[in-house]
């Protein structure tokens, strides 16, 4: 265990950024999101949840895949350069780290998505324990320990120090880079914080929400439930829940004509959007009820069916905080639980 005084955090950021780009929570225009550290960035480790998850670090909202150049009839294709330099994502919470592991199941499955794989290979995760979990958090339901998250390096923030514990080889290598700034520490403060967090987690209203009945075998029974027809009604068909979600991975591939070459880029898409499944001969999910159902069935039934029971939800609670109509996955889980289905 190492530690660094809070007052020296800027030196730590600068030291990390000297060798690789550093992404961390930055407050800009009143909101905190992951961004690239610069000298004048307002780093914000106090806000528990960035508005968007850290998903962008590995799977950006929008990224170029390749560019087509046309010369008369002749087409040539220039693939986008893959991530080649390492980078650090600092301050990821346990839910976001698990979110990346959910994405791994999709993008690293055969055939591997190289764009994502390259970022995962070169990305170093410095996670941060949640010293003050909030009421919409329910990561515990998915077996996540927010007091000691996964990651290459795990850190804890107390009133005076940031405690730093390398976990993986990548984490050790990063620690070596900044060794001059770190001092040795015992586990006492961290143990205390972990115990305090564990006690808080038990008081969270949804930490122990039951997922009983949600699994790959529940497909037809859940799909055919009349509850969806009641649950979806206030849904505005916006993409807020999907875009703030650490695990939503659906994407679109589109063209952007730069005037000098056509970029084929991919961007996050949302199964909540009416044109998501639209094709020339029609649309197989015509109603918002169907689209709403798809999102939750995918997270709680289809994904576990394909991934040994792993849910495609990490309980970060961002959808709980951000849905304009106050709909969310908790209400869905609870509604089904109430009906005993």
């Amino acid at each position, binding site marked *: 265990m190492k530690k660094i005084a809070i007052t020296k955090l800027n030196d730590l950021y600068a030291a990390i950024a000297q060798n690789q780009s550093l992404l961390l929570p930055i407050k800009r225009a009143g*909101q905190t999101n992951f961004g690239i550290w610069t000298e004048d960035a307002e780093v914000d480790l106090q806000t528990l949840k960035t508005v968007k998850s850290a998903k962008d670090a590995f799977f950006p909202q*929008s990224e170029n895949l390749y560019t087509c150049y046309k010369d008369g009839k002749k087409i040539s294709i220039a693939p986008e350069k893959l991530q080649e330099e390492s980078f650090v994502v600092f301050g990821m919470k346990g839910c976001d780290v698990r979110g990346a592991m959910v994405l791994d199941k999709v993008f690293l499955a055969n055939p591997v998505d190289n764009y994502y794989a390259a970022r995962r290979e070169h990305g170093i995760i410095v996670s941060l324990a949640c010293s003050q979990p909030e009421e919409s958090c329910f990561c515990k339901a998915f077996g996540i320990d927010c007091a000691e998250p996964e990651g290459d390096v795990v850190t804890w923030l107390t009133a005076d120090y940031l405690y730093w514990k390398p976990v993986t080889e990548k984490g050790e290598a990063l620690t070596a880079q900044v060794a001059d700034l770190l001092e040795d520490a015992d586990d006492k403060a961290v143990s205390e914080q972990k115990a305090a967090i564990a006690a808080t987690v038990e008081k969270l209203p949804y930490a122990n929400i039951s997922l009983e009945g949600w699994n790959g075998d529940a497909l037809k029974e859940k799909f055919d439930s009349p509850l969806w027809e009641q649950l979806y009604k206030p849904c505005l068909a916006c993409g807020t829940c999907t875009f703030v979600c650490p695990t939503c991975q659906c994407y679109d591939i589109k063209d952007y004509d730069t005037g000098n070459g056509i970029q084929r*880029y991919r961007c996050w898409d949302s199964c909540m959007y009416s044109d998501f499944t639209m094709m020339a001969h029609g649309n197989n999910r015509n109603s918002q009820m169907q689209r709403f159902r798809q999102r939750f069935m995918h997270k709680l039934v289809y994904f576990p069916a394909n991934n040994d029971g792993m849910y495609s939800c990490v309980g970060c609670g961002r959808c709980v905080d951000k849905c304009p*109509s106050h709909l969310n996955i908790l209400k869905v889980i609870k509604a089904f639980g109430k009906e005993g289905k």
Partner: protein
Amino acid sequence: MQGLKARALELLNDGTVSRVLGWKIGENTYDPEPAFFETAEAMEQFVYNNFCAANLSKYMIEASKLEGKTLVCLKPCDSYSFNQLLAEHRIDREKAYIIGVGCKGKLSIEKVKQSGLKGILSVTDTDPLKVETLYGDAEVAYKDAMLDRCHVCKGKEHVVYDELYGESEDTSDADRFEQVRAIEAMSPEEKFAFFQAELSKCIRCNACRNVCPACSCRKCVFDSNKFDSAQKANVDSFEEKMFHIIRAFHVAGRCTDCGECSRVCPQGIPLHLFNRKFIKDINALYGEYQAGADVDAKGPLTSFTTEDAEPGVVSQGGIV
């Protein structure tokens, strides 16, 4: 609230209306969700409290297609949106039974959180708000937890209703155009920096568009495939501005300033400022106009007269 619920139930039971459009109890005081109620049993979950901020008028577009009347609960400012949708023939007055519900300013849990409170376990909708959190109890003054829009309240009168329930209060304590004037006073560089910082937070979730009662097009131009600018992502750093500026143009003269866009934005972008700028300019150029105040009034941008002002943004350097 009980009286409102009883009255709504009465109208549902006697067949005056086929359903009630109101709010359903959430997990907590602060997260009621818009809901349709069709049975007395369902009505048990009906709620109307000071966190019922959602403007339900847009749901009447879908409700107008259903059999029978829908009882809709509208707050004074929501009634402007309802009127504007009526004027645009997007909803059917005959399909609505409007209870104008009292409003003394609506609360926002985001505002409570902005006061520095974390881990909110329960909150009252009283003055002051009593907040119980994981990390201790606190109080927040009602005014400090009110939505921005309530500080420039349009007044306590409903512009359309069948009956009224409850008392309303004019909660305005700020100048509606103060922020607009502050931005107008900025240098071009400052303006650019301001909008850049605000709009670059946009995640293109389209919540602002989808909640907006003025955005009632069956197919939005941003959903067109024949458009480089897709609705889901910014292909470059300029486009995020374009989306919001184009949207502001599309609702100009029709936006009632209901403030739903800013309320739902997950990134807290003050989108209503674009609309207010248009409203301020329209007032200056065509005379005072409040969209939705009068169903029969002609819109400033949809009626032409030879006396119309012809501002040239380019030649005159814009309207300041």
